[in-house]
C-alpha cells in the first residue's frame, strides 16, 4: 500500500471500517471499533455518522429559505443628495456591469449567485446519491464534494463588500450607504449552507463510490 500511483485511479481501498477499526478524523489515528473517544487528541469517534443526512437536509432547507429574501430585498441603500436608491444582489451586479467593470461584476455574480445556487443543487444531488447510489459515475462525485466544501465560504464576499462600503461612505448630506435586510439573510444563508456541507460524512460518499465501481467492474 504505497502512495505512489501508477496512473490508475484506486477507487477501492482497505478502509478503517473494513479492518474493524475506527479512524479519527482530527488526528488520523486508528482505534479498535467501538472506541468512543480518540486516545491521542480526545475527539469523539464514529465510524460513519448516522445522523449526517438529516442534518445536511435540515441546514440545506434553512439556508434555502434565507436565500429567497436575500434576493428579493435590497442589499444596499444608497442616499445621494437626498435621493434614495436600493440595490439587490443582482441589481448590484448589473450596476457594476454598466460601469464597464466586467471582471468585478463577474466575480460578484459568481460569488453571490452561481456559487450559492450551484451549492444548493450539488448538496441535494450528493445527499440523494448517498441514499441511492445507482447509475452515477464515481469520477463525477470524486471532487464535487471537495469543491462544494471549499467554495462555500467565498459567497461571503458580498456581505464584506457591503460592510466596507457602509463603513467608508458616510458623507452625511452628500452620500451615505446603509445595509439592507438582504445582507443579513444572505449572510445567514451562506452560514447555513456551510453547516450543511460540513454535516456531510465524506466517508459515506466514498463507501458509495466503492460500491459503484465494484458493480461496474463486474
Amino acid at each position, binding site marked *: 500500500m504505497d502512495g505512489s500511483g501508477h496512473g490508475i485511479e*484506486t*477507487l477501492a481501498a482497505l478502509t478503517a471500517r473494513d479492518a474493524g477499526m475506527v479512524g479519527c478524523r482530527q488526528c488520523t489515528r486508528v482505534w479498535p471499533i467501538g472506541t468512543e473517544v480518540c486516545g491521542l*487528541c480526545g475527539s469523539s469517534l464514529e465510524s460513519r455518522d448516522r445522523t449526517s443526512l438529516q442534518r445536511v437536509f435540515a441546514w440545506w432547507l434553512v439556508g434555502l429559505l434565507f436565500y429567497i429574501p436575500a434576493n428579493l430585498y435590497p442589499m444596499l441603500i444608497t442616499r445621494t443628495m437626498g435621493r434614495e436608491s436600493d440595490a439587490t444582489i443582482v441589481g448590484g451586479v448589473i450596476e457594476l456591469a454598466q460601469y464597464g467593470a466586467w471582471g468585478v461584476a463577474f466575480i460578484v455574480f459568481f460569488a453571490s449567485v452561481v456559487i450559492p445556487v450551484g451549492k444548493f443543487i450539488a448538496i441535494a444531488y450528493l445527499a440523494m446519491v448517498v441514499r441511492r447510489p445507482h447509475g452515477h459515475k464515481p469520477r463525477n462525485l470524486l471532487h464535487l464534494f471537495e469543491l462544494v466544501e471549499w467554495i462555500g465560504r467565498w459567497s461571503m464576499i458580498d456581505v464584506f463588500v457591503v460592510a466596507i462600503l*457602509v463603513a*467608508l461612505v458616510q458623507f452625511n448630506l452628500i452620500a451615505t450607504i446603509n445595509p439592507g435586510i438582504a445582507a443579513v439573510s444572505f449572510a445567514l444563508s451562506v452560514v447555513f449552507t456551510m453547516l450543511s456541507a460540513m454535516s456531510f460524512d465524506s466517508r459515506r460518499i466514498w463507501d458509495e463510490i466503492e460500491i459503484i465501481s465494484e458493480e461496474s467492474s463486474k
Partner: protein
Amino acid sequence: MTPSDNILCCPVCDALHEVGEVPDGIRLRCIRCHTVLAVGQPEAIIRIVVLAVTALILMSIVVFYPFLELRNGVFTSRASVFQTVMSFSEGVMAPLSIAVAFFVIILPVARLSAIVWALGPLSFDRPPLPGAKTMLRLAETVKPWAMAEIFMVGVAVALVKLADLATLSMGPAFWSFAAIVFITALQDTQMSKYSVWTALDMASKR
C-alpha cells in the same frame, strides 16, 4: 489491539495507510482521494509557529490603524477594520456586525493564538502547555470560519465600486492585512493533521 503509530486513516475517505518516516520535502497523499495526509518537513512545526506569531503581530496593526481612506473633494473618511466590523451595529443589523467581527478578526486571531499555544513550546523542545490538545482541535474546527482572505477580495470589489465616486488610498492596515492573508496561506501548506499531532504526541510523551 493497540493502534500503532505508523498506521493512519484518511479523514476524508477512511482508507488505511501505513507510513514510516516521511522523507523531507515529500507530501504524502491519500491513495484514493489525494488528500494531503502528511508533510515531510522537519522544521514544519517551527515554521508554523513563526508564521502564526508574525500574523498575530500584524493583526494588531490591522485592527486599529486606518485601512482605507476615501477622499471626495474636501470630504475625507477613513475606515479601520474595526469600523468596518461595526458598520452593521445599528438596530436589526447588530448580529451581522458580530458575525463579521468573528469572521474577519476574532476567529483568525483565535486560530493563530491556539496554534501558538499548542505548538509554540514544541519548537523550543519544551513539553506542551496544558490544554495543548484542546487548542489544536479548536484551531482545526475554526479553520473554515476564518475568512480573512475572502474579506480581501471584498475589499477589491468595494474599491472598484467606489472608483468613480471618490479617490481611495490604502492605509498601513491594508498592507498588513494583505501580508496576513499570504502568511496564513503559507502556513496552511506546512500543516498536516498527521504530522502536527505526531509532533504533539511525541512531545507530551517525553
